[in-house]
């Protein structure tokens, strides 16, 4: 078992859910495939989906909902 960390490609504000009333994209323990959306980063009033760049199981989130993130910041840790 290895681990893989998904990082942010842009600075902005991180969200776990597609909209305030929706369920989170993924929760800890969920399995994801490469290309699955795991969160959103809002930058310049547009929303960018954060995609898993590897398949695995979500072991933990490294940022809270609505945290400000920077480029390259670690967002989600996967067990691969």
């Amino acid at each position, binding site marked *: 078992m290895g681990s893989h960390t998904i990082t942010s490609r842009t600075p902005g504000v991180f969200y776990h859910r597609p909209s305030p009333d929706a369920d989170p994209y993924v929760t800890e323990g969920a399995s994801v495939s490469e290309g699955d959306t795991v969160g959103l980063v809002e*930058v310049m009033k547009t929303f960018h989906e954060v995609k898993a760049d590897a398949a695995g199981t979500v072991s933990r989130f490294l940022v809270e909902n609505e945290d400000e993130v920077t*480029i390259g910041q670690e967002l989600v840790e996967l067990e691969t």
Partner: protein
Amino acid sequence: MIRVQDPGLETTVQDTGRLGYYSIGFPPSGALDSFAYHVGNALVGNEPGAAALEAVYLGPTLEFTVDTVIAVTGADIPAFVDGEEIPTWESVAVSSGSVLSFGQLRAGARPYVAVAGGIDVPLYYGSRSTYTLVGIGGFQGRALRAGDELALGADARDPKAGRRLDGADVPVHPSTAEVHLLVGLHSYRLTEDSLARFTDTEWKVTPDANRVGYRFRGAELEFVPREQPFGAGSDPANVTDCGYPVGSVQVPGGVEPIVLLQDAVTGGGYATLGTVVSVDRDRLAQTKTGDRTRFVPVDLDGALEVRRDRLGALDRIRSALT
């Protein structure tokens, strides 16, 4: 022609801007980092003023359908042609069918792509710059989308690969930028302490930072109590409406100062505490959310000297690149 495979983030066509219409509410638009834009054109052998592409944070993926010469300037970001990394701040030949793409930004915020002949979109009020807020200029008045096809101009003066900006002239993008501030217009509205606090604070760039302006966080400022004049409203951060210079700083409510950039709101009723020296807007344009900025006060002579030095350097670079 350029075919847009992936638009990146807010990638727009920009030139030196649409000057002369500020009084009717038209901001100039144009490249935010004027130095990177001008050097890009010089590198590919364009006349000054040819239109280029400006992106932010994420570079676009662009396919060229002709043999041409390009240069990537501005932010520190890896750039690739057909998967091979290319030097930035240097003109590079690309062949028909080649694809330009970008990696993850290392420093700065905005990469520029200059192309021999410039991006050929219609002139709108004398400029090819995009003003997305009202949808005019540039490519259909908007940021690029996948599938867009951009025509190229035919009038490059002297396109040539291998022109390179001297390493000593390549701007560095520190995570704390320093910009010069000419204090004035309504600085008298701030208490003395607050004005000093403004220039002592390292302000953090918030996620609200785009071509209209940058919003900062870092301190609270207080205004001198007064009976508000007619037309100024009751908020002490307000004055009677006036024009806002490009680069001017307002502090709505005393928190989160805003610096207006090339797509500026042209006027309004917030007290203007100073104006960033025009050539230093280049530095602001290369800061991103989470970076820090210090405002260094200068007087008018100091501001003019900063501008003269920077424009002189650009002239020297342009002549060296011919």
